[in-house]
């Protein structure tokens, strides 16, 4: 492979003077190509190392982007992606004519907002509280318990949710009954589900986020607290005036990352827990589950594709807009 590169390179160098007379632009282009070939030849071992990763990205991340084309076609599996006929914006019309798109867009953004506020909020509280604990052993024990749910799959979580929320055998209803209250049929009460999903999300992720915040707290120089202590500040005052301001940047980064993905719901979570329970769709159906059903259950490739393109587009817009805003406030925090 290396020999071929060198040969090509030689060939181009010989040809260059001739081209120079005819067209300036081609020379520049040729120069660039020579340079590139040189670079690839010089570091061929390194570029070779990158080949599997690059191939992966090409096949599994870039090639599927052509799938967006289906959004403008009437997909026929016999004719394939390129053979199917164009239908312009019909798929989008079909999706945007109905009311579903408003419901799923609202649910996606609303649920994600709840997750961001409560997920990160509680993680900050937990991190600060854990940091206040003087007994190292007890602190470690607590941390282990809190981090545990992060490691299990959403399918397992859905089983646990069923065990807690089940109508007749669920722990929650049994407890309610024992306390003299009425049972609640949670799996047919859509109003309760934004709260339930938020609780489950917080339960599963607060251990994860609190570790990030604990790391940020650990990076605060201890003399800040020492001088505050000499000045007679209480623990609470130190939290509000030292800890919180100094972990604000970490908080901002995590919030921004999450807001950038606000159009992407957690499919594994919602489909794992709610599944095909149509009674709960009004408050739990998100763009991801909706497009999944359109694809796998209705087999409507065109519409599923239109929804996905809408999601990808809105997701990209959100990030670009957000980055623009962040840039104006604080250049260093901008992503690009």
């Amino acid at each position, binding site marked *: 492979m290396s020999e071929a590169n060198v040969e090509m390179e030689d060939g181009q160098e010989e040809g260059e003077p001739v081209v120079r007379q005819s067209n300036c632009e081609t020379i520049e282009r040729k120069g660039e190509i020579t340079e590139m070939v040189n670079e690839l030849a010089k570091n061929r071992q390194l570029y070779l190392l990158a080949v599997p990763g690059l191939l992966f990205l090409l096949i599994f991340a870039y*090639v599927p982007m052509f799938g967006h084309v289906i959004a403008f076609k009437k997909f026929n599996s016999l004719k394939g992606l390129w053979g199917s006929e164009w239908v312009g914006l019909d798929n989008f019309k079909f999706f945007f004519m109905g009311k579903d798109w408003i419901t799923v867009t609202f649910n996606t953004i609303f649920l994600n907002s709840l997750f961001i506020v409560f997920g990160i909020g509680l993680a900050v509280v937990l991190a600060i509280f854990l940091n206040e604990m003087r007994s190292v052993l007890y602190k470690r024990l607590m941390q282990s318990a809190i981090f545990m749910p992060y490691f*299990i799959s959403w399918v397992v979580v859905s089983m646990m949710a069923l065990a807690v929320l089940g109508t007749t055998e669920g722990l929650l209803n049994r407890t309610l009954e024992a306390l003299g209250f009425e049972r609640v049929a949670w799996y047919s009460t859509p109003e309760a589900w934004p709260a339930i999903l938020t609780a489950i999300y917080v339960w599963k992720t607060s251990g994860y986020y609190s570790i990030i915040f604990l790391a940020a707290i650990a990076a605060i120089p201890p003399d800040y607290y020492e001088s505050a202590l000499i000045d007679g500040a209480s623990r609470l005052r130190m939290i509000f005036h030292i800890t919180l301001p100094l972990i604000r940047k970490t908080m901002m980064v995590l919030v921004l990352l999450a807001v950038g993905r606000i159009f992407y719901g957690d499919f594994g979570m919602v489909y794992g827990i709610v599944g095909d329970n149509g009674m709960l769709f009004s408050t739990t159906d998100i763009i991801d589950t909706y497009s999944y059903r359109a694809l796998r259950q209705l087999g409507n490739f065109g519409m599923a594709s239109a929804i996905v393109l809408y999601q990808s587009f809105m997701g990209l817009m959100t990030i670009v807009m957000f980055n623009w805003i962040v840039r104006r406030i604080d250049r260093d925090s901008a992503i690009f």
Partner: protein
Amino acid sequence: MRDKWFIGFVYVFVTVFAVFCFLPFWMVFVDSFATESGLREKGFHLFPTEFSLDAYTFLFSGGQVYSSYAVSVTVTAIGTIGAMIVSSSYAYVLAHRKVKYRNILSFLTYFTMLFGAGLVGFYMLIANWLGLKDTIWALILPYLLNPFYVFIMVSYFRDIPYELNEAALIDGCGEIRTFVRIILPIAKPVLATVGLFYALQYWNDWWLALLFVDDYRLHPLQIMIRQLVSNLNVQSYIAGSSTSYTVTIPSTGIQLATVCITIGPIIALYPILQRYYTKGLTIGAVKG
């Protein structure tokens, strides 16, 4: 004085939250040993009142649990090794200062995090273009490279002193040999962390199997749990045949028992997992 009240509140709050985090695990474990009639009568409960191995006996009498376990273990093992090879070598190139096009490569990687191909294109790629439906590769290949994990490794590789590379180069060591013999051994901590990230992702995934695997012989454990909840004919699913038993099936118990054996390895490895995850997250957090 005020501090005392505050510290008391801190301990109570954290303890209550930690107990809530742990309770579901405990409940699933305890109730997997309950009898079916006990579960029906008392519902899910926290204090063991009876001990029966009915669910486990039934579960292990059929073939499905073995094949599902084999699928999950195979996918996790091959996937993690493959992902580490692909991702670490790719990350090394992104981090290498001699590579002129590393910024272009980084951008190509980063862009996939911003603009996804989406479900339909991805589905068509695996199912139609690559023809991987109902094969084990559909569960392995799509996760071989996670941009986020790659960037964690990049930031670690960047901090390794470049003098090491220079010394190796002077000694006549090629770039690939330098990477394998010198850099990888030094990078063990980050490799362990990211390796566990990948292993957990493979073990816990059910999305790929949901999309691409209909054949029950290729069902990983996560899908098996799901099938047990939604499948009407639990008996034939577990046994892998239509042999009929006259006894009533402990269906709830079987679900719980399957959950227990699925999260069993995670709980057993939990101290290690927790330590490396904390380390990995801390690297990420400090680097921003």
